[in-house]
């Protein structure tokens, strides 16, 4: 069971209090009517399924009822950060990749 830090409550709480709501940072197109059927289908149905860093939307359903984003590693299930809606993640595939590269450099 995950241990999730709610950025609104400021506390680590058990997964039972939360609902996962899928991939984060998928904005609703500002002009839906300008989308082709395919673009609209991509928006509502298609999601990434990465092995590694995943930014996802959660809601503290049995807590403050606020939505927030979490950066979770899909292999280790480690939650690397949680942040409010509208904020940008600080841990991304790119930053983790950089880190890996530097560590590799040190050991080599």
């Amino acid at each position, binding site marked *: 069971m995950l241990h999730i830090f709610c950025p609104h409550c400021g506390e680590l709480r058990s997964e039972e209090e939360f609902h996962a709501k899928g991939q984060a940072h998928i904005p609703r197109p500002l002009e839906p*009517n300008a989308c082709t059927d395919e673009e609209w289908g991509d928006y509502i149905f298609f999601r990434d399924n990465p092995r590694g860093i995943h930014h996802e939307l959660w809601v503290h359903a049995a807590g403050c009822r606020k939505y927030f984003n979490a950066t979770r590693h899909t292999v280790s299930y480690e939650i690397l950060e949680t942040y409010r809606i509208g904020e940008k993640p600080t841990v991304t595939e790119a930053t983790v990749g950089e880190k890996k590269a530097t560590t590799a450099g040190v050991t080599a």
Partner: protein
Amino acid sequence: MSQVNRLPKGGRVDRSQPLTFTFNGENYQGFAGDTLAAALLANGVDIVGRSFKYSRPRGIVAAGAEEPNAVLQIGSTESAQVPNVRATQQALYAGLVASSTNGWPNVKNDVMGILGKVGGGMMPPGFYYKTFMYPQNLWLTYEKYIRKAAGLGRAPLEVDPDIYDHLNQHCDVLVIGAGPAGLAAALVAGRSGARVILADEQEEFGGSLLDTRETLDGKPATEWVAKVIAELEKMPEVTLLPRATVNGYHDHNFLTIHQRLTDHLGEIAPRGQARHRVHRVRAKRVVLAAGAHERPLVYSNNDLPGNMLAGAVSTYVNRYGVAPGRQLVLSTNNDYAYRVVLDWLDAGQQVVAVADARSNPRGAWVEEARARGVRVLTGSAVVEARGNKRVSGARICAIDLKNHKVTSSGELVECDLIVSSGGYSPVVHLASHLGGKPTWREDILAFIPGEGFQKRHCAGAVNGVFGLGDVLADGFEAGAKAAAGAGCKVVEGSMPKTEKRKEEAAVALFQVPHEKSTSRAPKQFVDLQNDVTSAGIELATREGFESVEHVKRYTALGFGTDQGKLGNINGLAIAAKSMGISIAEMGTTMFRPNYTPVTFGAVAGRHCGPLFEPKRYTAMHRWHLEQGAEFEDVGQWKRPWYFPKRGEDMHAAVARECKAVRDSVGILDASTLGKIDIQGPDAREFLNRVYTNAWTKLDVGKARYGLMCKEDGMVFDDGVTACVGENHFIMTTTTGGAARVMEWLEIYHQTEWPELKVYFTSVTDHWATMTLSGPNSRKLLAEVTDIDLDKDAFPFMTWKEGLVGGVPARVFRISFTGELSYEVNVQADYALGVWEKIVEAGKKYNLTPYGTETMHVLRAEKGFIIIGQDTDGSVTPDDLNMGWCVGRNKPFSWIGWRGMNREDCLREDRKQLVGLKPIDPNKVLPEGAQLVFDPKQSIPMKMVGHVTSSYMSSTMGYSFAMAVVKGGLKRIGERVFAPLTDGSVIEAEICSSVFYDPKGDRQHV
């Protein structure tokens, strides 16, 4: 009742406390402190069960959780039945009743066993897949008999009398296992001030120290154990959990512990006590000190009763004072196994021979055995056990390890007990629950826990550290690291002194060679619980199952409750050998929670009976009960279904209730409808975006019906929303949809349109709603309210505030029955009084309470939909013929608009909601019935839709239904057919879904 195998002295049992118990209908006696397995062995019970597939006789092999055979059914009464109990883990209590789970007519004489012997060669892995495939439709018949013949116990048929608990715990350090490493770790962590939980699955703490020959500080190891426990017990922040198996290692250091609180006292817990408790622990650090399981060697007939693990025999001798035989033969590849020889001699029993696979073993215990006159045959192994229902001899041959060959004709020695040891497998199960792949170490011939993502420290044997001194040091170090990691200041302690002893390395030996090829040699069992043989594994690799996971699934190696405790490594080694690769290349399968079986009672905890799910009651529930209402579950709500009068069935009650509403007036408790209070300057704009229709022009005091869609254009909720003030609305939702609509509004507000100034508050429980419906509702309401109910002053689809029954109320003139209706909303805590006042005033109008069933009939007569009944998430507003509810010219592209304009949503032959009128007016179509245009076509027929709602209308005098039919709206007047499972066909005419008062005159009066 003589305990033929009980030694005259020794063991940790209390000989002053004899306990009688029953196994397979016969009475036996053991002592307090015995496990059921120890007591069975003390009484010379050889056969405890029949094997899963071949039905071969099986005896006790191990002394702990890894026991594969003695998996028994416990319980003297039906309600106390517990399947899947390992006799090695069940403490003996007075009156214990146990029985074997396999074997017919009984374990000693088994019919399937004869089949197994004769047909053994005909039942290779995949036998069931290959044999019972054809004809396909007979599988259900085969399965019934296969299941009957197999199985490992049965569930009780009566209600469990016991209670079970769940407990949430938090700790700094959770120590798993109370052997030398675990005790050392707990001691350091405890002394450092950490909040510690120490859990161990056995009856007593101490692990291997309880039966070791080694000393600590020159004294028996058990004295050190007692001292440590005494110190830990005094620490207020330390919780000791005996009989507590850590069964699951879950994400973020969340672990579940299954503690058997009273299983050692009897089959039913003492009054007022919980029988099991599941601890749900969040630990800052975990010390995994789960130890290791001894690995048996794989030789022919190694499943005969009388074949045991070497270490298990030491345990039975030293801990329980039981010698499960007289003449012992040891087959081994390592030094540590020799302790059984010394223990056996100390117990006054005979050691026939030791077969050591190594060419020149010279370790301390080997030499001690030699010095005591034991015959040690080097470069040898037991290749085959002999005997019928119990070992009577062992064939020992010289073997060539390198070429996997038998090199001498060998000799047959007489014996009644063969013990084997092929090395030690760290119990890596918990470490791999979260996906950490175990790592193979060739130097110790074992998998150790791989890199873990979790904050855990492995210590002792599980870490591949075996010598007692090293184990203790490893435990102290892990305890210190864990305490430091949890933020404590570490206080070091002193380690007890251990003896130094020369110990030599083991050689790799898993499957012992035989003169014949693996497939022709007598069966060599790898996984005793699942009856997997070395020949079966070779066959699997020959047939192309090369991945370890595939081998596992094809052969059932490591399946079920066993989880590969004894057989896994041997199985991998055999598979690797047959493919010519190393064990490291082969890798291991993953282990899953739970480590050992957990009872359903423990899983459920208190979440059963009345606490299974919360129940929600409306404010008028007491009144409904007094009126004898039948209830229906709607979500968690208990709603009155109908109010039967004496002698009435549902049909009669519903007919009466419907008639009362249509003729005079009825009252419905509609409190369960979801209610969301929406406020803010952008509330109206928000409604425009989430509803399909327009809200810009809804004046204060008015109400409007709205449909809500998802982005795909499919309807997902509906309800009436009223304008309370310029910036204030009250939205109603379906009963079941209240929570998801609330979440839906929030997600759009919080993530997409945070700039809109609007707030949502769930007020479902704050307001109680009573619906007065029927031509006399105005007259009745007028008697209890000060609101002007004149039809021009208070028209349809408006609302007013005033007093009802002396209580402030919001009254909405809306209708779900098609009749003149008023929905009276009052603060919930006043509602029962108001309801009773209305009922009192209503007597002269024959005011009739009605339930959800009548509500459903009345609304269906009007063609009003129910979300989730007439819709299923694949229906657009146009499919429902509710295009009038779609704001096609709203400026903002509201939720659902783009989706419902996708090409597929615009097809004309989509399934559309229509009415159906059965040609025979007395036949009621079953809801869910599939529809076809041509009933004479051959099966499978082309289905064109299904019935969504169907009732008998007493008002109209005929049956009617709503249905979705392909292109139905253009087929009004045509016929459809519902072919039913009994072969009959109901014919119906497609018509408008509005059956009653299509112009809506009655609700507008």
